[in-house]
């Protein structure tokens, strides 16, 4: 009985998407809907296969992934470092935090017109936008994580003679890590979002460009394929972050393995 329930639990989340896809396939092949606007799932898979074989898909996918990773490293790295700095030093925090919080309230995509004028439509502009997008969630959560580390633990560390570096390495950083991961997962979402917008508005390569270009030729199958790829990439990034989180936070009660 228990086993049956478990199996049912595993299947249930898939029922709706699979049913939708089957219905979509039927609707498209039977011409209940215009197949030019809603190409059948089989057609999309076919297109995906052709683009893959021709190398076009991998070319665009590679460029998008490159932009995502480099942008995450730059923006996330800066956010992490500034979060550490302001979390650890009250002076730096007084000097910088209110300015950063002010800039944070500007939706970063609102800067696109300005960025195109300043940086053109080259790689720099896209990397800049992605970096800006991921900077804030990582900054805010690193800062918050460091500030909320249990003071009692830091005091304990001092009594036991830990120097500043050991205090940081053994107590402050591990204590801030759960919060930093929240920031990272949030940043990953913003990373793809920013990239899609940047690539659709001003670009000549990448998955976003592939979708925009397909619109010119009414290739709905390519557009839907691009959207699906974004969804898969987003999910993949999230799963990766979750795995890293589970490994690093294995001490945490919420991640403890059930024995």
């Amino acid at each position, binding site marked *: 009985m228990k086993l049956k329930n478990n199996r049912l639990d595993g299947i249930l989340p898939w029922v709706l998407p699979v049913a939708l896809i089957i219905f979509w396939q039927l609707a498209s092949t039977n011409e209940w809907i215009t197949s030019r606007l809603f190409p059948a799932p089989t057609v999309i898979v076919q297109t995906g296969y052709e683009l893959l074989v021709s190398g076009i898909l991998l070319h665009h996918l590679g460029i998008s992934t490159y932009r995502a990773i480099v942008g995450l490293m730059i923006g996330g790295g800066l956010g992490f470092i500034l979060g550490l700095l302001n979390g650890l030093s009250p002076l730096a925090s007084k000097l910088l935090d209110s300015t950063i919080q002010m800039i944070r309230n500007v939706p970063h995509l609102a800067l696109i017109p300005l960025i195109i004028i300043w940086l053109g439509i080259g790689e720099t502009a896209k990397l800049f936008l992605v970096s800006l997008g991921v900077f804030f969630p990582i900054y805010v959560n690193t800062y918050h994580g460091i500030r909320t580390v*249990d003071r009692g633990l830091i005091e*304990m560390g001092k009594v*036991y003679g830990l120097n500043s570096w050991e205090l940081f390495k053994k*107590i402050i950083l591990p*204590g801030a*890590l759960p919060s930093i991961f929240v920031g990272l997962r949030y940043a990953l979402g913003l990373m793809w979002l920013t990239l899609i917008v940047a690539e659709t508005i001003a670009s000549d390569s990448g998955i976003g460009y592939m979708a925009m270009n397909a619109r010119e030729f009414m290739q709905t199958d390519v557009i839907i394929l691009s959207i699906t790829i974004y969804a898969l990439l987003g999910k993949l990034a999230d799963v990766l972050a979750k795995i890293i989180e589970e490994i690093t936070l294995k001490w945490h009660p919420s991640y403890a393995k059930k024995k």
Partner: protein
Amino acid sequence: MEQGGSGLHVQNISKRFGTVQVLEELELSVNQGEFISIVGRSGCGKSTFLRLLAGLDEPTSGEIVLNNKKMQGINPEIRVMFQESRLLPWLTVVENVAIGLNSNRSLTPADRTKQAAEMLDKVGLKGRENEWPHVLSGGQKQRVSLARALISRPQLLLLDEPLGALDAFTRLEMHQLIYNLWEEQQFTAFLVTHDVSEAISLADRLLLLENGNVALDQEITLKRPRKRDDRLVSELEKQVIDRVMKVH
């Protein structure tokens, strides 16, 4: 007791926070290996006194001398057991105990782990070395905390109400454990507690703090091991409690 000999000498210390005078010219001499209990109402300055001994705060005036040396800041010969266990949740039990060896830079990591495991055995937690702190009960956590404090064989152990959050049975077990380790290691102990019978059952000397100074300095000569239901223990307990209540 002559000044500056071995043991701990508290010379005229005062502590003020803003306009609040917490300790006022407190004087105290303690022999090496003595077990002192400090009782008093909330706000009498007992925790502040312990923090000064730990080197976590500086006295406004006066000084503390340990074995002829004026104390300044954190001292590896002094360990503290806090009210909460303050274990690092991201380190295993044995790694937490090894933190206590941090001041000894000459040990290899393998030595540390070995010594920490031995110390865990002494506090009755053999076999739990590689568990995370969050799976332990409150009493077990305090055992780990005690192991961490005593692994470096400090001269002075400060206990800041470490058993306050534990249930009555666990407290009795912990009394026994603390007493055994004290007999074995011969450290000087200061126990801050609000439980007078706990203070009496463990200490050689009971101090009552009031208005920032020692109001009562009572030697306890009762034979050990002391039982809670012993007539002499309960008489002394009643005396001390009456004395505490009298002021207010």
